[in-house]
């Protein structure tokens, strides 16, 4: 144990202990590599503590068919990944894949939804796209005992959608990481990374840590850490709000994008999107708007108390699609940015770890490089 505490040289140093870092790190350990996660304290932006918990397919990947495939792949791996976490750690992340709905209020919304998803299908060049459009009657049949608001005209449905408890997921991944022999170092805020003959040296507030390879999965921290290492990845914060109701008996059999019932009975309500810089304080108007839409959609929700609300800051790229990039100037340094850390946890653990370990990059990765943004800037 004391060896572990003192150890400061690893095959891979992962910067970031949120949704992405530990997922990738678990896979690296399973490939026989010696891995360290560097994390900060609890007084920093903690995007991974603010998640809604959807494992979500429909609507992802507009303009990037490879992201559609990538999301499908993660959704497909999820049950097995969740089972691994449960078997190994005893932590039930409450993953369920009952399919998911996005309910539409009014014909205009429905038409817009069909147009949007239709474009994603078109962009896929004829690939199957697991989406169905339901009218109100079909939605009612799918949600027995859930009286719909009078404005609900229909929904889009995907059998690939599901959900998970994001806090248990985070805890399970951290537990699994340490169980597999990984070294977790909190209060190791990284200031810079340099290199010497032996590899990379990560300079932190609590001393240096060395790694042959470095994975930057630091959320908003990538913005400052990346550029000196040849990873100029444009990300910005986008604020989203979540409301949680008191626990109630099972009502909603599947997640509905903007709301889902947890396996313990709470109903979580979302979703907002605001440009507010790094301000993650709660905005009352956003809370009001979310609650108002929820009660228009399912009026019975009106009788529930809201027991908590919070805001968190998505890590958003300009096209909302993920970045997986190895530095050209610093080989062996990898940058990962995505606002879908929950949905992609399974594929990050099972597949992205292989890419970092040296496997041929997954086919989808041709689209996930950072060049796409720089090409746009040059045009």
């Amino acid at each position, binding site marked *: 144990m004391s060896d572990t505490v003192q150890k400061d040289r690893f095959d891979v140093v992962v910067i970031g202990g949120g949704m992405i870092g530990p997922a990738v790190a678990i896979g690296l350990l399973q490939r026989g590599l010696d891995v360290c996660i560097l994390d900060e304290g609890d007084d920093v932006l903690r995007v991974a503590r603010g998640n809604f918990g959807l494992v979500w397919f429909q609507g992802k990947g507009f303009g990037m068919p490879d992201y559609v495939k990538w999301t499908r792949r993660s959704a497909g791996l999820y049950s097995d990944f969740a089972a691994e976490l449960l078997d190994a750690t005893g932590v039930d992340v409450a993953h369920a894949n009952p399919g998911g709905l996005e309910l539409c209020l009014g014909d205009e919304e429905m038409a817009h939804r069909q147009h949007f998803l239709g474009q994603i299908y078109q962009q896929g060049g004829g690939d199957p796209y697991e989406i169905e459009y339901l009218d109100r009657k079909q939605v009612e049949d799918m949600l027995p005992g859930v009286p719909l608001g009078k404005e609900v005209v229909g929904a889009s449905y995907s059998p690939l959608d599901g959900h998970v408890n994001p806090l248990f997921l985070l805890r399970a991944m951290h537990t699994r990481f340490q169980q597999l022999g990984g070294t977790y170092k909190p209060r190791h805020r990284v200031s810079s990374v340099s290199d010497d003959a032996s590899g990379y040296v990560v300079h932190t507030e609590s001393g240096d840590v060395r790694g042959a390879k470095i994975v930057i999965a630091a959320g908003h921290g990538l913005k400052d850490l990346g550029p000196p290492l040849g990873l100029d990845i444009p990300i910005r914060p986008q604020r989203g709000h979540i409301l949680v109701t*008191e*626990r*109630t*008996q099972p*009502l909603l059999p599947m997640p509905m994008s903007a709301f889902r019932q947890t396996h*313990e*009975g709470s109903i979580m309500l979302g979703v907002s999107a605001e440009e507010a810089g790094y301000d993650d304080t709660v905005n009352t108007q956003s809370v009001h708007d979310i609650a108002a839409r929820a009660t228009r959609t399912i009026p*019975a*929700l*009106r*009788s*529930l*108390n809201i*027991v908590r609300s919070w805001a968190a800051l998505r890590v958003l790229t300009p096209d909302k699609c993920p970045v997986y990039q190895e530095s050209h100037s610093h080989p062996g340094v990898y940058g990962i940015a995505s606002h879908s850390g929950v949905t992609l946890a399974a594929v990050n653990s099972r597949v992205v770890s292989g890419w970092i370990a040296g496997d041929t990059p997954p086919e989808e990765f041709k689209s996930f490089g950072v060049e796409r943004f720089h090409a746009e800037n040059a045009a």
Partner: protein
Amino acid sequence: MLKTRHDVTDKVSVTFDGQQMDVPSGISVAAAVLSVRDGATRSTPVSGDGRAPYCMMGVCFECLMDIDGIPNRQACMVTVADGMVINPQEGASRLGDGA
């Protein structure tokens, strides 16, 4: 069971779990219940374990009770009123209860 520190003459009559009782006016429902009940005042929706009022200041949500037909109310945040009907909160409420 908790006792009041001095005699209070201004009282209201409430019912808890079917038992009628006179309690000082102006106190919270949670405080009133603690004067007649030693054990659990609710069961959790997750494990079914018993729970009772704890923080008494609106933070911990352990004191949830059904008050005048409305489930899951924070009993420490509600002042007793004459004729109030209070019941333990057993498990999760059903959506629409009290609506």
